[in-house]
Structure formats: structure tokens, C-alpha cells
């Protein structure tokens, strides 16, 4: 049952025929885990909290630094030095007291990830490195958790929604991590906040659709976003028969952590 305040708060989305009163009740009972509360995680968390997703897990080991603030819009100047999960929780609670926040203020690894994700209905990958991305995607596959993959660098972004076993997985796109030292993803490559905001908002949208089982999710296709030329493309993508995770002869049968170094700017 929604109380009168909730009926007002969510009235603009309850009016949507694909959501409605029942959909709103479902959102309030749903649990979403957002891994990373930075450039992608900030808009994801804001929109999921505003929409009334009842339980939000936030995993982030990091603290707020001044160079985060041009894109990580959950965190303010006064939060510098605070744990990101604490800063994020405060903003979410102020935005919507309906939301229960569960914090994981440590680095996810092969030992702890299963326990963290087991209780959630959908997982949103909003991390900044490939090591964590492979760990999250493999774990979601083994535990059959829907996964919203989003990533950004520079003016570019990609997005895909993964239903383990049904749609192409992360390794159907990127079978193995990039060769160490070849990929510029780290701090010195740069990223514009609005680009992360765009992809993060789309991740939140996909997560809500997955939670409510509405519309057509971005599964079996990839969205490729080029913000500099404002070119958005949808690329149909198939399951890879030779996928090391979900293919015909899988070779990955347990969680693994890669050591991947990014290319440094010279």
C-alpha cells in the first residue's frame, strides 16, 4: 500500500500505463545494487532513489576527492575526504526517505562479491576498471542476476543489458580483457561529466525496466554513444558460440581477478 505522500511523490510515474500503482509498489519492494558511486553511479543512484526503488546497495571503497566533482554529482565540495558511500547515502536519504541504503565500503573481490550480490534483483555496473567489470559480469552470470553494463571514456560510452544465459554476456562482447597497457581508461584519459550522466541515466532506465519487466531492454544489442559528434548507434550483437563464459565450451568456471594496467598518457 502506498501512503498519501507516496501517491503524490510518485504520481507522475504512477500515471504511466507501463508502471501504474502496481509497478510503483513493485519498485518500492525492489532491490538494486550499484557498484561504483562515481560518474556513472551518481546518476544511476539519483534516478533509482527518486523513482522509489526501495533498497539500494552501494559498493564503493573510495573517498571523495576534488577531481571527482566535475562528474560525480552525488558528491559535493564539502564531502571531500568522506567515504563515497556515506556521501551518497546522505544525498539519497535527503532526496527520498523511502529508500533503504545498504553500504559496502570496501573493494569487491572474488571472495566477497557473491555474498554482496546474492540479495539483489538487478546489478548495475558503474565501476571504472576492467578488473572489476569482468569479476562483476562473471559473477552475475554464475548467479543468474540481470546486469546493466555501462562504461564511459572521453566523450564515448557504451551500454548493454545482460540476462545471463538468455542474452549475449559481457564476454560475448569482450571475451578477454584488453592486453595490459593498451587501453586508455584511467584517470589521465579524461571524461566529461555529461557523458557519464547520459550513460548513467540510461542505466537507471534499463534497471527500472528490468525490475518491472516492461518494454524492450537493451539485450542482444549494444548502444554506442559518441557525445562529441552526438552520434548514437545501436549495434545488434549475438551470443558468441566461442564465448569463454556462456559459449558452447566454456573455459571460465570460477571467478577470477585480472591484473590489467591502463595505458599511461605520455
Amino acid at each position, binding site marked *: 500500500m502506498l501512503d498519501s505522500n507516496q501517491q503524490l511523490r510518485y504520481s507522475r510515474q504512477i500515471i504511466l500505463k507501463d508502471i501504474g500503482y502496481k509497478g510503483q509498489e513493485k519498485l518500492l519492494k525492489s532491490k538494486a545494487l550499484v557498484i561504483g558511486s562515481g560518474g556513472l553511479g551518481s546518476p544511476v543512484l539519483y534516478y533509482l532513489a527518486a523513482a522509489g526503488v526501495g533498497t539500494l546497495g552501494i559498493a564503493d571503497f573510495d573517498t571523495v576527492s576534488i577531481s571527482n566533482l566535475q562528474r560525480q554529482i552525488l558528491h559535493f565540495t564539502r564531502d571531500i575526504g568522506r567515504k563515497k558511500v556515506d556521501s551518497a547515502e546522505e544525498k539519497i536519504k535527503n532526496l527520498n526517505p523511502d529508500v533503504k541504503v545498504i553500504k559496502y565500503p570496501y573493494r569487491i573481490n572474488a571472495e566477497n562479491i557473491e555474498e554482496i550480490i546474492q540479495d539483489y534483483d538487478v546489478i548495475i555496473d558503474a565501476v571504472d576498471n576492467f578488473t572489476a567489470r569482468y569479476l562483476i559480469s562473471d559473477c552475475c552470470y554464475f548467479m543468474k542476476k540481470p546486469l546493466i553494463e*555501462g562504461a564511459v571514456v572521453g566523450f564515448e560510452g557504451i551500454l548493454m543489458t545482460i540476462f545471463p544465459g538468455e542474452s549475449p554476456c559481457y564476454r560475448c562482447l569482450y571475451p578477454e580483457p584488453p592486453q595490459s597497457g593498451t587501453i586508455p581508461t584511467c584517470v589521465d584519459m579524461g571524461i566529461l561529466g555529461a557523458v557519464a550522466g547520459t550513460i548513467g541515466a540510461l542505466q537507471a532506465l534499463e534497471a527500472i525496466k528490468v525490475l518491472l519487466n516492461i518494454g524492450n531492454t537493451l539485450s542482444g544489442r549494444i548502444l554506442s554513444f559518441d557525445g562529441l559528434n552526438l552520434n548514437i548507434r545501436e549495434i545488434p*550483437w549475438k551470443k558468441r558460440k566461442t564465448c569463454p563464459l556462456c559459449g558452447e565450451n566454456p573455459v571460465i568456471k570460477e571467478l577470477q581477478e585480472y591484473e590489467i594496467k591502463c595505458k599511461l598518457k605520455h
Partner: protein
Amino acid sequence: MTIVLNGKKEVLEQQKSIRDLLISKNIDPNTVVVEYNGDIVKREEWANIFLNEDDVLEVVRFVGGG
């Protein structure tokens, strides 16, 4: 010969392998994955696949930041 590269028509003066096409576009082959005519092809095969008229190629960069 004309191919379609990431949704755009592209004229090739001469037949090229996937690998050579990437290099001619200043794309480091280590930084992308390739879908060729709807199938995903392994990196090791890129030097041996020569493009033909009307081939469709999707080149997706590794993007991992957040």
C-alpha cells in the same frame, strides 16, 4: 569496393584484411572488438579475413571507465 563500417559506407581502393583496415584507420587492433557480417570474429583471424564488396563491419572500442 564499398563496405559498411560502423553504419557508414566506406570505399576501399584495394582489398584489405580486417587488420589492415583497422591500421589504415589508425585504430590499434588491441583496443577493439570486431563483428564481421553479423558474426564475431577472433582477433587472431583478422589478418586472414579479406574484405569483399558489401561486407558489414562493426568495430567496438574497449570502453571501461566510469
